[in-house]
């Protein structure tokens, strides 16, 4: 039997519904989250944060705070002037201004909640007491809250040295969009608005820097998705070599992009621990999380889509203003979210002529940063609303207009007008499968019946494509300070035969300890329970960034495949000597190397002992370390697609929008673990429903935050989220190793558009369009009142 034939016969680990190895510790209270760490002699931090949105910082009187009970030290920006180098999210983008990132506000504050002073005390209680005793003389500066006003010449500047509040402006175009739109017989146009939100992981951000006096080194535990990036940036800020700063992300309680950037508090805690030569800890409370964790969305989009008389899209033009908040977040830059809106606006459709213009405008609000879907939820909302508006105009069914415009099977690979290339993915297959599952035709019939009874019942479709598993040829900001395009796996069989696989990724709910073990065990021929996955540790591999952008299974899974295969070859070669047979006759499976078709085998443990411990048992050439380190780069990345369908009913009295059914049909390529894929889709959809109906960060015209608690910022509970149905279309990816496509974010990309389309469909008899999300009862009431006038 050939090795391949044997591989085909045995039970597959990749694709199996395997219960997670992470679960038992998390279910029994034995999880190891950052704030759970008990560190002897640790000092606690409370920050005095700005209550002004935009003000010059005058003299700061810290004497009373210094003298308060339990206080060890009080730091302001002046204390780090010589010891901490400001960092900048650099990029080669033309006209881009990279704002400095410092541990504490320097000269000015630029948003409510910006840290100005850090108090270090024996307990958090003492630190908070002392924070109130700091007196700061503020000199208020003009408001910079509205992005359109802030972009004007003469507006008050947040960063005077930039000369403008427009931190970056870009344009993507193909063809002659003005001429094509002018010639298009059917045009739809609207102004859309996606309101600001926050990622809101249930675990607030936290970090603790443990100081090793013996070698002037820090071990920094942080709730981060990107330990490699944090290690590199702290090393730069404090001018330390990488081996004296190790960053560990232990169990992390959700992140959704909100823990994927470098934060001032992280620099502060490291710098303070380094200066005090003591362990220092900070745990954010929920108010701080609302005020200072990277926020998301907040775009205004003017878009127009032109069609021929048969409903085929010809040209799309869009102007986007992104309100990016006060700083260009490190390392992603302020371009991250708004630029990706214009990158993905053409969606899964053939649209020959395209122009997307975008401005990222600084305002006196918390900085925006990565959030699940990055730009795609907004882009999908806009394009899918335009598709439905055009369908209504043309008298076409929303399903039909999408089928007429999808990139067809024969068109792949297809480059959309922004330059992004789609490879083969089940665009039409997902739409068809979602319609079948929800009984689309049946729902439309029911809609006719209930409408005559005066009910508001609507069905909304959203189809999208996303770029996942992005390789080294594509960067969110050209020339930014990190490489997002590769990941490394180091697989080691130690002298006991145990398998350890180390990665640069950092799982924080995705179950990668389970799924990467599935990949390693399958390619190595190990037993799943013998494989330990090490991740979330900057010391695990020489260079790595972390987990974000639906990349970990594509990149780390690819690296795992390469490294495990290389180690299997070494095991087999060594075993060939022990079994006195040719390597080609051997197969590795279940932790043993077996002579194919016989019952002669040696265990990994026996092979490992022979290689490492038993002198003279193997010839020199078969005694190489049973380890391999491999780096994988998917170069361009791959395409994941899906269709979401929502059916909603609106209560005419309360205007409560009840989602009756929600179906997702998605193509994430080869599925490693269906249980986990379902969970990722469910969670993404729930956050997308939040974006559509509930979740909104509100700043007033003065830049004051009005949604600083969970009482004001509404997160959907189990009662607001309907039962979720998922259909998998598993088409192999032609470009990635293993055929994996990324899938962590997609749920959040499709759901806002599907719900918006369903609400608009429910209210279609009244001629109401839903062009602003979230569509709260108040917004709906205003729309209905206006329509009835």
């Amino acid at each position: 039997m050939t090795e391949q034939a044997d591989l085909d016969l045995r039970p597959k680990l990749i694709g199996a519904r395997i219960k997670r190895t992470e679960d038992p510790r998390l279910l029994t209270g034995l999880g190891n989250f950052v704030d759970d760490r008990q560190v002897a002699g640790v000092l606690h931090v409370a920050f005095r944060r700005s209550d002004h949105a935009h003000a010059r910082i005058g003299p700061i009187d810290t004497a009373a705070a210094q003298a308060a009970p339990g206080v060890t030290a009080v730091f302001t920006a002046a204390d780090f002037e010589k010891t901490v180098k400001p960092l900048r999210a650099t990029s080669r983008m033309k006209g881009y201004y990279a704002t400095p990132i410092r541990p504490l506000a320097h000269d000015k504050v630029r948003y409510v909640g910006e840290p100005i002073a850090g108090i270090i005390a024996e307990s958090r209680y003492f630190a908070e007491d002392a924070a109130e005793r700091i007196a700061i003389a503020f000199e208020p500066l003009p408001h910079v809250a509205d992005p359109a006003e802030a972009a004007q010449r003469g507006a008050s500047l947040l960063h005077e040295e930039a000369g403008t509040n427009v931190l970056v402006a870009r344009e993507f175009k193909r063809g002659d969009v003005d001429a094509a739109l002018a010639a298009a017989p059917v045009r739809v146009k609207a102004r859309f608005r996606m309101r600001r939100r926050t990622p809101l992981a249930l675990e607030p951000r936290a970090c603790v820097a443990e100081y090793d006096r013996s070698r002037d080194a820090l071990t920094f535990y942080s709730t981060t998705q990107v330990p490699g990036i944090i290690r590199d940036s702290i090393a730069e800020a404090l001018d330390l070599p990488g081996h004296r700063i190790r960053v560990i992300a232990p169990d992390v309680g959700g992140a959704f992009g909100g823990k994927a950037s470098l934060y001032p508090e992280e620099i502060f805690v490291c710098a303070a621990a380094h200066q005090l030569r003591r362990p220092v800890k900070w745990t954010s409370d929920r108010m701080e999380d609302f005020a200072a964790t990277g926020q998301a969305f907040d775009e205004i989009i003017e878009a127009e889509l032109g069609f021929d008389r048969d409903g085929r899209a010809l040209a799309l033009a869009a102007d986007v203003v992104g309100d990016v908040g006060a700083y260009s977040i490190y390392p992603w830059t302020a371009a991250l979210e708004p630029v990706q809106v214009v990158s993905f606006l053409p969606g899964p459709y053939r649209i020959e002529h395209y122009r997307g213009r975008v401005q990222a405008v600084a305002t006196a609000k918390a900085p925006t940063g990565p959030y699940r879907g990055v730009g795609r939820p907004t882009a999908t909302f806009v394009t899918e609303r335009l598709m439905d508006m055009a369908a209504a105009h043309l008298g076409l069914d929303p399903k039909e207009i999408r089928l007429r415009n999808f990139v067809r099977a024969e068109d792949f690979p297809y480059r959309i007008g922004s330059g992004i290339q789609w490879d083969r993915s089940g665009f039409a297959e997902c739409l068809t499968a979602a319609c079948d599952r929800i009984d689309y035709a049946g729902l439309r019939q029911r809609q006719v019946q209930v409408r005559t009874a005066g009910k508001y019942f609507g069905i909304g479709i959203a189809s999208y494509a996303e770029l996942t598993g992005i390789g080294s040829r594509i960067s969110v900001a050209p020339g930014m300070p990190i490489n997002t395009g590769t990941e490394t796996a180091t697989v080691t069989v130690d002298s006991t035969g145990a398998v350890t696989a180390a990665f640069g990724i950092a799982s924080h709910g995705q179950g990668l300890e389970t799924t990467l073990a599935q990949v390693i065990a399958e390619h190595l021929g190990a037993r799943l329970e013998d494989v330990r996955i090490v991740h979330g540790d900057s010391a695990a591999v020489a260079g790595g960034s972390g987990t974000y952008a639906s990349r970990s299974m594509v990149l780390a899974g690819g690296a795992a495949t390469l490294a495990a295969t290389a180690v299997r070859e070494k095991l087999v070669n060594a075993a060939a000597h022990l079994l006195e047979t040719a390597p080609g006759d051997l197969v590795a499976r279940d932790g043993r190397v077996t002579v194919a078709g016989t019952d002669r085998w040696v265990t990994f443990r026996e092979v490992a002992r022979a290689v490492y411990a038993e002198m003279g048992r193997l010839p020199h050439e078969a005694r190489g370390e049973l380890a391999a380190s491999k780096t994988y780069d998917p170069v361009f990345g791959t395409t994941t697609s899906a269709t979401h369908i929502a059916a909603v009913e609106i209560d005419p009295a309360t205007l409560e929008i009840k989602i009756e059914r929600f179906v997702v049909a998605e193509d994430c390529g080869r599925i490693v673990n269906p249980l986990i894929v379902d969970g990722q889709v469910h969670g993404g959809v729930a956050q997308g429903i939040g974006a559509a109906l509930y979740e909104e960060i509100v700043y007033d015209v003065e830049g004051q935050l009005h949604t600083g608690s969970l009482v004001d910022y509404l997160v959907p509970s189990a009662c607001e989220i309907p039962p979720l149905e998922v259909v998998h279309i598993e088409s192999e990816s032609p470009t990635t190793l293993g055929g994996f496509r990324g899938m962590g974010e997609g749920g959040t990309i499709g759901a806002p558009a599907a719900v918006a389309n369903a609400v608009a469909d429910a209210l279609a008899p009244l001629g109401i369009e839903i062009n602003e999300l979230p569509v709260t009862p108040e917004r709906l009431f205003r729309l209905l009142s206006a329509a009835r006038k």
Partner: protein
Amino acid sequence: MSARAIKVTVNGVAYERSVEPRLLLADFLRHTLGLTGTHVGCEHGVCGACTVLVDGDSARSCLMFAVQADGARIETVESLGTIGQMNALQEAFHEHHALQCGFCTPGMLMTATDLMRKYPLASDDEIREGLSGNLCRCTGYEHIVRAVRAAVGRAKDAPS
């Protein structure tokens, strides 16, 4: 502030400690007793991550001071099954993938424990209503509802 002596029973173990009146019950459990399974997500009583049982009723340990628990019997996630021997509810969460990051999980488990002791949980709507005071950002609740449904079914089938 002067410390006060309190006596509490946590997971069957009696403790006598001297605490400051302003110490939150959540901080007492986590940092004084080292029972870090109870998590703190909002400190204002909305998210439910810190849910424990106080004298048999679910309560937000971030909305109570430790001194208010003087004389009380407290159950936390550490009172349920162990890694080697999880209880039926924990097993159902494991089987149905009802947790992702695991941060809300201890609170979910304690709320579900309370619900299962007191109510029939005959429908999924009843389960959702019962869990509506516990926020989860990862799962979309679907698998949590299925897990609780399965645990309720298993409890019903078990010989009484």
